[in-house]
């Protein structure tokens, strides 16, 4: 697997869909590819948010510690981006992410990511668009809950 395949994966992420391939390549190049063994943690809830992860292969579970053991919130597969909200908001991790099978992910360092955002408005706009989109979805869900 090379940089090219990682760029392909990044393109699948809605946030990066519109971004110039050369910039995605820079993003991929400045990121690290890391392997997680089955059951190895990406990060724990409460950790400092130092990186976002793009899952290239494998699956990871998002969990919260409940009174009767962990509660699984979601299962993330290939091309899923996780932890990006934490690095943007500079807040501790809100949940724990664990690999459930041997997993390969692209580790996007927070500092590098913010550097790219400040350098290339195109990426910043893409991120803003995605965040606005998410906000709109949340608003819609909220409205549905109120009416429903």
């Amino acid at each position, binding site marked *: *697997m090379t*940089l*090219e395949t990682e760029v392909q994966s990044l393109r699948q992420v809605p946030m990066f869909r519109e971004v110039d391939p*050369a910039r995605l390549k820079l993003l991929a190049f400045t990121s*690290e*590819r*890391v*392997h997680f063994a089955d059951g190895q943690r990406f990060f724990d809830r409460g950790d400092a948010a130092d990186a976002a992860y793009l899952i290239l292969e494998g699956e990871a579970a998002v969990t919260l510690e409940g009174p009767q053991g962990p509660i699984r919130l979601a299962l993330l597969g290939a091309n899923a981006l996780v932890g990006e909200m934490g690095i943007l908001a500079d807040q501790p991790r809100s949940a724990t992410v664990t690999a459930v099978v041997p997993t390969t992910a692209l580790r996007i360092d927070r500092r*590098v990511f913010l550097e790219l955002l400040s350098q290339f408005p195109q990426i910043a706009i893409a991120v803003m668009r995605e965040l606005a989109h998410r906000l709109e979805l949340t608003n819609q869900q909220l409205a549905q809950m109120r009416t429903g």
Partner: protein
Amino acid sequence: MSGGAQAAGRTDGGAAQRAGGAQSAARGRTAGREIADPRAGNDPEAADASGGLDRSLFRYIWRHSKRDQILICCVVLASLPLYFASLDLPRRIVNEAIQGHAFEKGNTTAKFLVLRLQMPDWFGHDVSLFDGFDVDRFELLFGLSSMFLLLVLINGAFKYWINVAKGALGERMLRRLRFQLFSLIMRFSPDALRQTKASEVATIIRDEVEPIGGFIGDAYILPAFLGTQAATAMTFILLQNVWLGLLAAGVVGVQFVVIPRLRRELLRLGRQRQLASRRLAGRVGEVVDGIAAVHSNGAEAWERAEIGHRLGGLFDLRLRIYRRKFMVKFLNNLLAQMTPFLFYCIGGYFALKGQLSIGQLVAVIAAYRDLPPPLKELIDWDQQRLDVQVKYEQVLQQFLPERLIGLDAPGRDDSLCGRLAAEGVGVQEPHGPVLAGVSLSLDLPARVAIVSDGGPAASTFARVLARRAVPTSGRITIEDRDLAEWSGAALTRRIAFAGVDPILFPGSLRDNILYGLNRRPPDSAVVDAKALAEAHRTGNPVEPFPADWTDYAQAGVADAGALDALILDWLARIGMGEEVYRFGLLGQVDPDRHPDLAARLIEARIAFRERLAAEGHAHLVEPFDPTRYNRQATVAENLLFGVPTTTALTGRALVEHPVVRLVLDRSGLADDLVTMGERIAATMLEIFRGLPSGHPLFEQFSFLAADELPEYEAILARRTATEASAERHGGGALNRIRRRWIGLGRYGSADATRLIALPLAYIEPRHRLGLIDDAFRDRVVAARGELRAALDAAGMGGVDFYDPDQVCAAAPLRDNLLFGRINQSVADAVETVTATGTALVQEMRLAPAITRVGLDHQVGPEGRFLSSGQRAVVSLVRALIRRPDLLVLDGALSPMGENRARTVLGLLLERFGHENSLVVVLPNDRVSDRFELVLRAAGTQIHGPERPAASRAAPGGGEASPGETRAGAGVAAPAAAVSGRAGDETGPEPARVEQDVKA
């Protein structure tokens, strides 16, 4: 000639011995006469320096080198008859052999080599030693010519010996002078130090005395040699023809009178230039020392302008010097050329008139040819003399006796225990009294706090106790004996002082900590006799160096190993053990110095691997295997399979190394690497375009620096164009020319080298450009062996190769333990491996040995590689390791940070007070109750001692004391403000008093 040289060598050696003997005898006399210090007997410098430098340069030279000067002068005189003979021979060759005057009266033969001892008439007749050979005309010609050649050779041999002897003499005197100046610097008084700029003094010792040394060799000999030479030539001319001689003498006289006058102005300018350039050096030194302040104040432009102005001044001076100098030269040359003109003219006239033979004329002209160079050199010598004398006087100005403190006189060496009393101690600074009439007494050993009132008094009193400052009035006594009666050497051994600004020297941690123990000159068992004789002759120290000067007895240990353990114990107690351990992990293990550790590292290396495997983490580290490509290492590392020890094999320089390049070309790797480089360059150009240069991402990630992008773009363009063209038109020679003609075919080996440089740092799993396949890996592993063989064959060394059974001395200890590369693409690999390694080190008890390696850590210039807290610890341990009778701390703990300072103070209080005393300057009363005795500074007074009652430690007592100190602060504040501005090494600064122990 060789015989002459040998004889000269013998004479020289004999002279050396004689001079050495005389020197030591003289030393004994001087020592006996001038000072009673027994140490002066084996320290000739002390004897010399006590008298200072002579006011006159010539007296200085004569005092220290008369023996050599006279010897050389004698040799010069001995060479003169032969020189005269070599002048006379041309006349004989022309007159007797060529023109045949010797055969005039029908003789077919003439006598050759008649040796006759000429005697004064009243003594009788000449004594004939040898009647000579009978030779014909040709034989006479060849005989005389051969003799001429022989004389030339002998004269050359004389000149050679004289020059070497002169050079050695000058260099010896220079060595003596430099050493003497350096010794005098050590004796600079505090006042002198305040006015001295380090870089200016360094310039004096290095540059300014250099011409003096050059001149010393010539000081007496050159005028003797050249003067007699010129006089010989002149006498010769006079003997041939009085008129021609007088003519030459007249021109010479003019040269001697006029030229020096013109040169006087030159000297004045030269002096100005010397001062200006010395100030320039001082100024540059100041700027470099204070570069941080320059940057933070944005004063770069101002500093640049200032230096530019100085350089302009220097240029101006030099230009004026040149103008005058070359004018003088022109005049000199003119005068020198005038004489031959007159000789041809007038000498020719005499010859035509028959009053002068042609042979005489030729000889006169030949002799005259030899006259101007000595004369010119004599005039030069005279100028140099004036110049150097001025320089010497200027150097002397810096080392006047009033700027020096006295030599250390022998004195008491009693333990500093018992009743210590201050009797009316006062310290006067230029701006007013700092201490006035301080009288107190206390019993040592004790733990004493001096609580500052914010003024400089507490600090100054601490310095007086530590003998860092000498009271201007009153005295300090121990058991009623004045501290001044102790010898300086004893006091520096018995008292240790640590201030707020630790002074560290470049070297290892150990070197710095042991600095205070470097006081026992080793027994000179093995001595280089020649070096020793030279040292004697030049008044330099005769103690062996480099050697182990450590005084183990003073530290109370038997050997270096025990001393290391002691240092490590102190460091651990103070809390720097962990840091030194980390230095050790990054340090290098020299198998020769640490054979035990080296062996255990190999053992640990194997255990490490096994342990990782047992924990299921074997995949986290890819070990170095001579037969396999290490995927986690760079291409260059895989190629070298070792750690480069020269810069020629480090980084990109590798590709330019001829042996490496040869192996790359031979193995075909060069082509692979060019292709890889091309792809890397293309990718970098693609993804980093648009980032501003200097962006942090470049430095962190790119294979190319920002300013290299255009260059590589051009290389790629050239390569593409060349390839396309080659494809279209074929690669024939004609086409290469055609391409060059249209400016295309310039992609060449230089470009290829630039491309090969890129993939050297490439690691496939990290960079993921998909450039490396198994075939490439195999080729690299194959080339690895070839490269090693080639480098070994070249015999250049430069690589410390990895060997599973050996310690790689050039690699950090940590890498030797790991002996592989951590797989960075596994999450948390570094943490896991580090944890395993730490556990292993604990288990194998390697930590002490590793920490010991940490003592080799280099502290950098002024200790800049250490944090200020670490510097303070080094300075403190340096004081502790000496086991002083009295340890005085003034702000030494404050850089360590509050917690560590509290721990260290506790440690010191626990260790001191039984046999040794501790005196600490405290900024306030917060911890003073932990001491036995408390002194209080108030204005220019020190009150006390008082015993802090246990009740005083209560919060109430603690609150009362700041009020007290504040009352005193009002008095001392102005003095403090002024002394702070003085900013000198010895003067007290408020900052030092500020915070010693914040706890």
